[in-house]
């Protein structure tokens, strides 16, 4: 059982996410994280999926996903040299006494930013691999996290090889 990161390219059509999520529920696949957005190609969306399972389970997941008509291409990038990024917004209690501690922690150690401040709270924006975000959350938690929002991971392999359909249109 290990975590797999899958990049799924799908046609950007109504109901596609519904089909995919329905499939996970129906077949009992556990998804740790899912993030969706547009790609370099109009009409194509990219889903980054993190799921735990043995190789057979992940193989089934991939094969079943391929049966969703709008799924064009699935790449398991787990073993690639991977850039993984997630963004989190953390609203944390901040009193006059704790404010500077939090700010130091956030900016010096995690290179995160304070994006909003209120008399008794602050909002931290942090970007990075999920482990970094987990670690910041652990350190911030004692101050009292009022609200936490995470985007889920997006991932891309380093180097020139791309997960894409066809050749890019080069104008310049």
């Amino acid at each position, binding site marked *: 059982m290990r975590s797999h990161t899958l990049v799924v390219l*799908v*046609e950007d059509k109504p*109901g596609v996410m*519904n*089909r995919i999520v*329905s*499939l996970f529920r*129906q077949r009992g696949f556990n998804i740790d994280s899912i993030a969706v957005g547009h790609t370099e190609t109009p009409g194509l969306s990219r889903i980054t999926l993190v799921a735990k399972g043995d190789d*057979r389970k992940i*193989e*089934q997941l991939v*094969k*079943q996903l*391929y*049966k*969703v*008509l*709008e*799924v*064009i291409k699935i790449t398991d990038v787990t073993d690639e040299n991977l850039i993984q990024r997630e963004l989190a917004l953390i609203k944390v209690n901040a009193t006059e006494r704790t404010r500077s501690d939090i700010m130091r922690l956030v900016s010096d150690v995690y290179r995160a930013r304070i994006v909003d401040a209120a008399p008794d709270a602050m909002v931290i924006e942090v970007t990075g691999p999920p482990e970094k975000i987990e670690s910041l959350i652990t350190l911030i938690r004692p101050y009292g996290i009022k609200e936490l929002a995470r985007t889920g991971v997006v991932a891309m392999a380093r180097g020139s090889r791309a997960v894409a*359909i066809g050749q890019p249109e080069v104008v310049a």
Partner: protein
Amino acid sequence: MAVETQTRRVTTEQHQTEPQLGARLICQALVREGVDLVFGYPGGAVIPLYDVLPEFPIHHVLVRHEQGAAHAADGYARATGKVGVCLATSGPGATNLVTGIATAMMDSVPLVAITGQVPQHVIGMDAFQETDITGITIPITKYNMVIRSVDEIGPAIQKAFYLARSGRPGPVLIDIPKDVQLAKGYLAPPQPVNLPGYRPTIVPHRRQIRRAAELIRQAKRPLVLAGHGILISGATEELVKFAERAQIPVGLTLLGISGFPASHPLCLGLVGMHGFAHANRAIHEADVIVGIGMRFDDRVTGRPSEFAPNARIVHIDIDPAEIGKVLKTEVPVVGDAREALKLLLEEMEPLRHDEWIETIRSWYRPIRTAPSGPDGVLQPQYVIDRLHKLTEGKAIVTTDVGQHQMWTAQLYKCDIPKQWISSGGLGTMGFGVPSAMGAWFGRPEAEVWAVVGDGGVQMTLYEFATIVDEQCNVKVAIINNGYLGMVRQWQQLFHNRNYSETPISSPDYVLLGQAYRMPARRVTRPAEVDEAIQWARSFRGPALIEFVVNQEENVYPMIPSGGSFREMIDVHDAQDGEW
């Protein structure tokens, strides 16, 4: 005459120049797909469609419940290989199709279900008879769609039929809001269907075929397990050639029945939970198993870890997701069963496995078909055996689900492809009668028998009315044991005979037959069986025979659910088998 011809020409031209009602475009698109038969039931959201339907060369069969429409379309598809079409209104009409759609999904049957939907401006408003049928059917359709504008009608219907029948077939649902049926537009000319996310592999990779052939060549005790894919791809001839050339015995899954002739010396018949002992023992002893167009369903494998413990697996299937799903597969072959067998034949020289075949034969023990038990009560197996003999094995046989289904699978020996129609994957009680009706529409020259139980028949017997209306040549054989027999058998064997809610009463089927204007008889003694069957066969049109049989007869052999071949209970071991 001349005037009439001229008028017709003008009308045709008008069809091309003036925008047409969406409802007409739907019918035109159906006709273009070769549809001449639809099973359906009208309702508010499809009135525009029904308004114009009579203008088209499409025979509409008015069922009595939409579930019947779906099963009938399914039976039609299984009997012909063509796409079956059913039609229902929105809301309850659509949800009543659900069991039939799920049945077709599990058994890979090409079906197009068309549902009306409330007008688009009230979708999402909880309008009268509104239901999210596309949402409901996502997990039980190969694909589904809502047609949102009149321009989409042509391409959507073309796509639906293409998806239903290509690759691994399955049901496709098209939901059409009423306003789209009432809007005017044009039918786009057919375009080649181009779906970037849907490219089923038809011709398998030659390298995989060579690997399969090599493994088969090395085998001392090879076995083929043939499934529904043989029938879907029309591979019977190729399978016979292959089995004969390589001298490999063939076991059949429940849906593989009729895909390989039962009378062929290499045919082992049904495998799995209620499969023949020699067939299951052959699986247990085999060193190579070639699964073709089947999916190692749990009713075939029992506990997968103990299934075919000595065998290396070659798995040929058009759906890559089926390969490796249940068993570790040594040689995966993705492709159409017929194409795969054709290639395999090219790679396969004649082989001999005389000793292996003889050994399997020595394990064979016939299913008992004595007319009556010790108390003189009619035995159900005898009824099926007589039905097989008197119809010379040539009838199309549909079944419900349960004991009668297994006895029929064991004893009605099928030699003709697609003559066996049964709900395998979903195990849908109530399937037998409506699917028989559908099968008859597909093959009206055939003699069709629906072998059903007293439980299942009561789920869909309202379709007697349709069968009588249409004078289908469908004979219904009710095997009445007064129980939900298969559940009772499990209760007897695994739950200390606690027959909780399995005794079930029946109406007087002879009176019921009369009420539906359907000739009907009751048989209680072995001596009456032949005469009753011959009576039903002596005229065209529907007939009903109730066979009142031994109430506590069990289906053997039996491998308990999740068990292995070692745990098989044969009639000779069973306590109730001592007579």
